């Protein structure tokens, strides 16, 4: 029996481990590091460089250094919001591609290079070949993202024994020496690119996931981005003439690097000195960044995890007070503000005993041990994070397998012909929680073929099965002929890029026709809503602001009124925006007032 390794393929860092006489051990590379940066540098000629040396190229060759590729894996161009990567991300035939000079790589290929490096490190350390692996994915990854991750593993010449959810893996790491316990835990996993929350029941070695929720585009990268924005503002404040240069890729990469490091240090320090020497010519930038400033930009991002926590608690039918532990994993949970936030949401001090960077890899290794038979007495029951369904008449989603169903699981649906001699019918497969089909992820579509028979006589049963990796398999069976067929879903976006661009161009053309008139009308509507709102806010909380502030608001109101008469839409929009900005404080006071009133009423 050969070894099975456990791999955490992370947004920022990746790790690999193996069971060694009953213990999960993480393997270090030649430099002695267990963390391999998930970064790939693609030189003009020669082989790509992976890990720490690639990471050092980030500020030097930003357009050739690929990072955070996990945010792109299994994604379709249409659904990706704008990402601030200094390297070129293109779409071709409905797929994401990274363009480095004249080379095109898809995200799976980039991830496979990281996996290959881990494999080589493990083989060097163990002195034997390693070809079977367990790879982790964010629990909230959909079917396409899981498949793409599996493909990356196969490209790295691994046999993928299991795809396991990251928070579940972390729970295994936490629970390995608590196999006699009965408890309910939450795992809050906030990493570089993704956020997951899972709630589990531990019952004498049985790890049962009760619910999971998350956001695959929420993480430390977002905090970095906001921090970059803040630093850019400060740089422009110091050197206004640098404004045009700041959008340069090289600049961006340097500022990002600095921001990221400052963020890490601010987890343990209260202030850090941010230094960017020779930013441009001989202008150097130096700034004292406080933890408070960082927390101000991080807070809105961290707050976005709250609703996911509440949903998973609801789905598990648990009150936060009935949880025994809240385990924190993922690098971002080193930030004190995240710990405070968790304490607030779950009404308890979080458990920080797990190494935030390593717990997931340790768990993946334990799962590898379970599959190889080396680890006994552990039983893992995981769930599918998203509801699976099909599009029905009227564009609605008909759920076949609800979210948080224990996997493996399956559901069947019978289809018939709506008219005589209809020879096929198209089925659109969806994943997500929204009522309208178009608001969910489309996993793909397929055609059911009918025999030529009278209306409603054809009978084709379709079986949707989600396997232990959380990956979907579809099987169709004609009950009249008894023929069975495995169905391959075809990509939803088989439209060519030209067609997409044409559509965008047309909609823009159309938009310009009545643009100016529409902008004016919208601005007027906004003013008409805003002015009375400001007036009533002033009557409610006007006494709580200084007369200076009062005067400033008056001036802004007068400008809006004047702009309304000017028919200058640009001026009116600007006046509205300034009034918005100037009444921010007033809005906060109003909310405080509403909250204290609500609190008073509760008493």
């Amino acid at each position, binding site marked *: 029996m050969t070894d099975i390794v456990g791999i955490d393929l992370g947004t920022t860092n990746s790790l690999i481990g193996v069971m060694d006489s009953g213990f999960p051990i993480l393997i270090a590379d030649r430099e002695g590091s267990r963390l391999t940066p998930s970064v790939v540098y693609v030189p003009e000629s020669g082989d790509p460089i992976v890990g720490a040396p690639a990471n050092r190229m980030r500020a030097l060759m930003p357009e050739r250094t690929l990072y955070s590729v996990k945010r792109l894996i299994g994604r379709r161009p249409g659904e990706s919001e704008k990402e601030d990567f200094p390297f070129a991300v293109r779409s071709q035939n409905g797929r994401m591609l990274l363009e480095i000079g004249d080379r095109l790589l898809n995200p799976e290929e980039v991830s496979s290079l990281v996996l290959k490096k881990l494999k080589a490190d493990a083989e060097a350390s163990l002195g034997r070949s390693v070809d079977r692996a367990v790879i982790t994915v964010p629990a909230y990854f959909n079917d396409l993202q899981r498949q793409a991750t599996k493909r990356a593993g196969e490209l790295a010449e691994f046999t993928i024994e299991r795809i396991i959810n990251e928070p579940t893996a972390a729970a295994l790491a936490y629970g390995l020496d608590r196999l006699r316990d009965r408890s309910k835990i939450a795992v809050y996993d906030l990493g570089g690119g993704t956020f997951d929350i899972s709630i589990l029941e531990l019952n004498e070695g049985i790890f049962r996931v009760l619910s999971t929720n998350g956001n695959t585009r929420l993480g430390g990268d977002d905090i970095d981005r906001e921090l970059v924005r803040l630093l850019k503002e400060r740089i422009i404040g110091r050197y206004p003439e640098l404004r045009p240069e700041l959008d340069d890729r090289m600049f961006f990469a340097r500022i990002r690097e600095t921001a990221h490091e400052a963020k890490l240090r601010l987890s343990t320090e209260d202030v850090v000195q941010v230094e960017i020497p020779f930013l441009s010519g001989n202008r150097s930038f130096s700034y004292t960044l406080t933890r408070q400033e960082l927390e101000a930009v991080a807070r809105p991002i961290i707050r976005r995890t709250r609703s996911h926590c509440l949903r998973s608690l609801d789905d598990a039918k648990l009150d936060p007070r009935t949880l025994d532990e809240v385990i924190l994993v993922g690098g971002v949970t080193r930030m004190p503000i995240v710990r405070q936030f968790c304490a607030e949401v779950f009404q308890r001090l979080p458990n920080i005993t797990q190494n935030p960077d390593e717990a997931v890899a340790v768990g993946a290794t334990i799962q590898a041990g379970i599959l190889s038979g080396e680890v006994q007495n552990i039983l893992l029951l995981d769930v599918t994070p998203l509801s699976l369904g099909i599009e029905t008449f009227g564009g609605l989603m008909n759920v076949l397998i609800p979210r948080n*169903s224990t996997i*493996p699981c399956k559901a069947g649906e019978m289809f018939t012909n709506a008219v005589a001699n209809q020879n096929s019918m198209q089925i659109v497969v969806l994943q997500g929680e929204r009522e309208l089909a178009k608001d969910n992820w489309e996993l793909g579509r397929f055609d059911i073929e009918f025999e030529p028979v009278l209306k409603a006589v054809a009978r084709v049963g379709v079986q949707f099965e989600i396997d232990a990796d959380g990956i979907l398999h579809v099987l169709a069976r004609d009950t009249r002929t008894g023929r069975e067929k495995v169905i391959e879903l075809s990509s939803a976006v088989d439209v060519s890029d030209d067609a997409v661009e044409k559509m965008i161009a047309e909609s823009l053309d159309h938009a310009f026709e009545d643009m100016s008139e529409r902008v004016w009308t919208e601005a007027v509507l906004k003013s008409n809503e805003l002015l009375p*709102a400001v007036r009533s806010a002033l009557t409610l909380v006007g006494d709580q602001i200084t007369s200076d502030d009062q005067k400033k608001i008056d001036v802004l109101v007068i400008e809006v009124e004047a702009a309304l008469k000017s028919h200058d839409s640009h001026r009116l929009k600007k006046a509205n925006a300034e009034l918005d900005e100037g009444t921010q404080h007033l809005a906060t006071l109003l909310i405080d007032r509403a909250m204290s009133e609500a609190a008073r009423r509760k008493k």
Partner: protein
Amino acid sequence: MIDYFALLDLERRPAITEETVKEAYFRKCESLHSDPARSGELIAVNAAFQTIVNPATRIQHLLMLEFGDAGGGQIEPDLGELFGTIVEVLQIADQELGSLSARSSPILRALAFQRLDGLREKLVRAEKELSQRESGLLAEVVRLDKSWFKSTVQSRHPLAQIALGLTFVRKWLSQVRERKIRLEELA
């Protein structure tokens, strides 16, 4: 049709505690899990657990096994009435949430926020009423369970009605809770 009670080695009856179902399920899983060739059986065991642990689907499955159909009729009039109020609350919630998320001005959002408290109260009240209704229906299941073996046939109709009621009440509960979370998100 697979008898999920038999699959989990459980007695066929309307009320079974969650603990009992879980224990039976875990026992089954442990015997299957070490063997990857038996993943088909695992699928059936998972389905059995999901069906039996949920009172509404458990009762429907029981009635299907005993009588060949789950026999759901019209929903009870008092539930119909409750449905009316819930739909109203949901509509108000969607409207308020929609208008709130569409607003970009801080001051407009703050003023809308003043109204949210009323909405939150409405949702909390609806949730409470639904939870009470749920407990009432579950208590009724336990009551019918006591006489199940003596009067199986007589229990058929009331059980079918309870299963139907539970299905609706749970669905509304999750809809109300989702609105509560969305409200929190915006506030």
